[in-house]
C-alpha cells in the first residue's frame, strides 16, 4: 500500500541520515572519504557489531579496486544501508552475555579471576590485545577483591551505554 511504501521510504531516509552522520564524524577532510581503519568504529557506532572476520568482508565490499586507504561514501552508503535494513550483526542481549560469562565461569563461583578471563579473551575467539584486556580490567575488576563480578559488570556496562 502507498502508506507502507511511504513508511519504507521514510525508514530508508532515516537510515541514510544516520549513516551520513556517523560517517561525517570521521570525514576529517570533508570530502566524503574516511580512513579505512575507522570503518570498524563507524559500523559499530551504528549499532552493528560484526566480528573482525565479518568486518573484513564488509571492508572488501566497500573499498576501491585499487585500495587507496580511503573509503568513499558512495560505496559505503548502500552496503551499510543493507546491513542496517537486514539487521545484520545485531546487538547482544544482556541475558546472553550473562550466559557467556557463566560458560567461562566453570566452577560457577559467580565471579571470574582475572587470569581466567585473560586466558580466554586473549587466546580464544578473536583475541584481545593487551591494551584491550587492561582496559577491560580497569573497568571490570573489583578493586578490593581483585576479581570480576560479571553480573555487576554487565549491568553497569548496559546502563552506561545509554
Amino acid at each position: 500500500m502507498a502508506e507502507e511504501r511511504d513508511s519504507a521510504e521514510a525508514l530508508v531516509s532515516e537510515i541514510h541520515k544516520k549513516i551520513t552522520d556517523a560517517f561525517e564524524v570521521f570525514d576529517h577532510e570533508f570530502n566524503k572519504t574516511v580512513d579505512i581503519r575507522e570503518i570498524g568504529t563507524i559500523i559499530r557506532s551504528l549499532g552493528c557489531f560484526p566480528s573482525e572476520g565479518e568486518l573484513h568482508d564488509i571492508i572488501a565490499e566497500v573499498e576501491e579496486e585499487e585500495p587507496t586507504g580511503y573509503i568513499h561514501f558512495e560505496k559505503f552508503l548502500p552496503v551499510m544501508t543493507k546491513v542496517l535494513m537486514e539487521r545484520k550483526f545485531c546487538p547482544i542481549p544482556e541475558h546472553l552475555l550473562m550466559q557467556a560469562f557463566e560458560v567461562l565461569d566453570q566452577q560457577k563461583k559467580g565471579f571470574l579471576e582475572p587470569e581466567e578471563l585473560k586466558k580466554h579473551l586473549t587466546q580464544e575467539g578473536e583475541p584481545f590485545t593487551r591494551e584491550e584486556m587492561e582496559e577491560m580490567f580497569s573497568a571490570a575488576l573489583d578493586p578490593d577483591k581483585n576479581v570480576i563480578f560479571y553480573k555487576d559488570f554487565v549491568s553497569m556496562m548496559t546502563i552506561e551505554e545509554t
Partner: protein
Amino acid sequence: MGCGTSAATEAQGRLSEKDDSVKAPSPALTMKAAILIQRWYRRYVARLEIRRRYTWSIFQSIEYAGEQDQLQLSSFFSFMLDNFTQISGNGPDLISHLLDPALTEEEKQATFEGVEVSDSYSGPHISFPLTVSDTNALLSAFKAQQILHARYVLQLLYETKRFLKQMPNIIYLSTSYTKEITVCGDLHGRLDDLLLIFYKNGLPSTDNPYVFNGDFVDRGKKSIEIIIILFAFLLLYPDHMHLNRGNHEDHIMNLRYGFTKEVMQKYRTHGRQILQLLQDIFSLLPVATVIDDKVLIVHGGISDMTDLEFLGSIERQKIKSVLRLPKSFEDVEAERGLEKICGQAGSLRSAGGPSGGTRKRRCRRRKPSSGSSSSSSSSSSSSSSSISSPRGASQVWSSPLPSPRVPSPTDLLQLPFLDSIVAVASLAPPREEAGWKQIVDLLWSDPKKQDGCTANTFRGGGCYFGPDVTRRLLQRHGLQLLIRSHECKQEGYEFCHDGQVITIFSASNYYEEGSNRGAYVKLGPDMVPRFFQYQVSRCTRKLTLHQRVSVAESSALKSLKEKLFAHRSELMAAFQEYDVNKTGCISITDWAQATESVLKLDLPWRTLRPRLARLAPDGAVEYQSCFEDVSAGQPVPQISPNLAETLYRYRTDLEIVFNIIDKDHSGLISIDEFRQTWKLFSSHLNVDVDDSAIDDLARSIDYNKDGSIDFNEFLEAFRVVHKLDTKEKQQG
C-alpha cells in the same frame, strides 16, 4: 530480531542447552562465549570512541570559532584606531589604549631601575647575569605559587629583548656537540606540564638543549611564569635554549585568550609596561629553527609559498601582530578610508554582509576543494594567508566613508563597519606584504591529508598544506622532516604526510581533564625521533576509559549548551519556521538543519541530539528542551531578553574592552565610556540595540549613582548557570 547467520544465533541455542548440563563446557562453546564477550566489549569501546571524537569536534569547533571571533575583534580595534582620535571629549585616548598600551611619558622613561623591591617582598630575587641558582630559585618559587617581583620581570624582559635583537629569523642548530635535542610543543600557560617535562627530561643545560615551539601563553593560568622560566634559561644558555614564535605570541590574541588579563591581575602597577615589552619581545622571537640542515621546526606549518631564504631576510620585528597589518599599510588605509568588501575576498571570510541582523560567524571547517581555492587569492596562484591581507588585485569599492569625526551616539548605527577584510590598493609595498604572509603561514597553517594548498578558513589564517607541499619544501631545502605544533593531539604527538611531518603538543588535558596526553620529542644525530608522553593528573587513581570520555564529554556538552542558550532567540525563530502547526515539535532532520544554520558549528548534530534535546513520543524533537539545562545566573530586571542574550554571547569581548578602558584597573568605568563602547561594539556586530535600552542599562547598573559602573559586577550577571550543577550542589 532476524539476526542472520551470525554466530550469536548458534551460541544462543547452545548456551541455553548448556544450562542443564553438568559437565565442563566444550572448547567450542567456550570459544563462542569468548567471541560474544569480545564482540560486545569492542562495540562498547567503539561507542566510546565515537563519543570521544565528537567531544573533540565540539571542543575544536568552539575553540576555532573563538579564534574567528578574535579576528573580528581585532578588525574592530583596527578600524577604531584608524578612524577615531577620541571617543569621549576629555577622557583618555581610547584608541591608543586599545592596541598599544599607551605608556605615559613617565612610564616610557622609566626602566626597571626605578622599581624598588621592598623589604616585605618574599618572592625570589634574581641578579644579572643570571646563573643556575637564579633559575633554580625561580623554579622553586613558582612551584610554591610565588610571584616574581615586577622589577625582576622588567629586568629580565629588557635583557631578553636585547638578546633577541641579535638573533636571526631562522636559527640553525647542530647535534654534533650534544647528544640529543628535545623539542616541545604548545604549553599554553600550563606550568605543571613544563615542570613535568623538566622532571622527566632534565633542566635545559649545555648537555641538554631544548627547542620550545611556540604558544607558551594564553588559556592556562601560569603563562607569565612559563615565560619567565623560558626567558631565564634562554639568557642562561643562549646556545642551548631556543624559542620559536607561535600564533599566541601576539598581543592581540593575548587580549582575548587570557594572557593580558593574567599579567594585569598579577602586576597591577607595572602590567602595562610588562605587556609593552612583551609585545616587542614576541615580535623578536625567531620564527623557525633548523637542526642539522635536516629538520625544520615551526609552530604552525608551511604553505606552497614558504621560502626559507626569503624568510631569513625579512624584518620580523615589524610584525607585532599578524592580526594587524604591518605599520606601513595603516597610513594608506587611513587615507582611503575603509570599505566593505564585496566579492571574492569577502565570500571567503566571515559572512557578515551589509545586511543587518545578527553577525554570522564563519566557524565552518569547510575547506574549499582545490578547484575553488581561487576564492582565497584573487590574483596569485597560491592560496595562502587569508587573514586580513591586502590584496594587490582590483577590488570592489563601495561608497566612501564619511570623514572621520567623533561620532555622536545616534550616528553610530549608520557607520559602515569593517568586517574582516581590509582592502588596500597596490600601493602596499609588495615585499612587506609578502614577508608578512610568510610569517602568517608559518604560525597558523595546518597539515591536511589530501594534496594541495588551500586557505585555512577554519582558523581564519594561514593555510592547509598537503603532503605534496611538504615534500616539495623539504626537497627544495634538502630537509628530511618538519616538526610543528599548533594542534592538540590525543596522544600528544602525531605523524602525518608519510612520516614527513610530526605534530608535537605539550599541554596535557588541554580541553579537559583526561582529554589528551602531552608529549615531547628527542632527536639525535641519527635524526630518528623518540617520543615521550605524559599527563598531568589531579587524582592518583587511574580513570577508566569510560570515565575519561565522560568527563571530557560533559564539559564539551556544557560549552555547547551555553552556545545554544546564547543564540536562543535565533534558534527559536529557526525552529518555529519548521513548526508550521505550532506543536512545539519538529523532525530530527529539521532540528539538525536549523541548529547548524544558526550556530554554524560543523558538528554531527543528529548524533549529539540525544544529549541536547528531548524527543516526543512520536519521535519528533521537542525543541524547547534544548534550553532547559542552562539558565541565566541572576536576572537583571531592566534588561529585555534580547539584550540579555546578546550580552551573554559577547560577554568575553565586552570584558576585554572594559578592561582596556579601565586604565587604572579600578574595576570602574564611567557611564559615558560604557555607553560609547557598547554602541560602537553593537554597531560593529550589526546588533540591533536601541539607544534608550542602553541608556537605561547604564543607569540601572550605576548602583550608587556616582556616574561610574563596576563592570565586573555587571558582567557577573551575564554568566550562565547549568541547572544540573546547581542541583548537584544542592544535593551534595
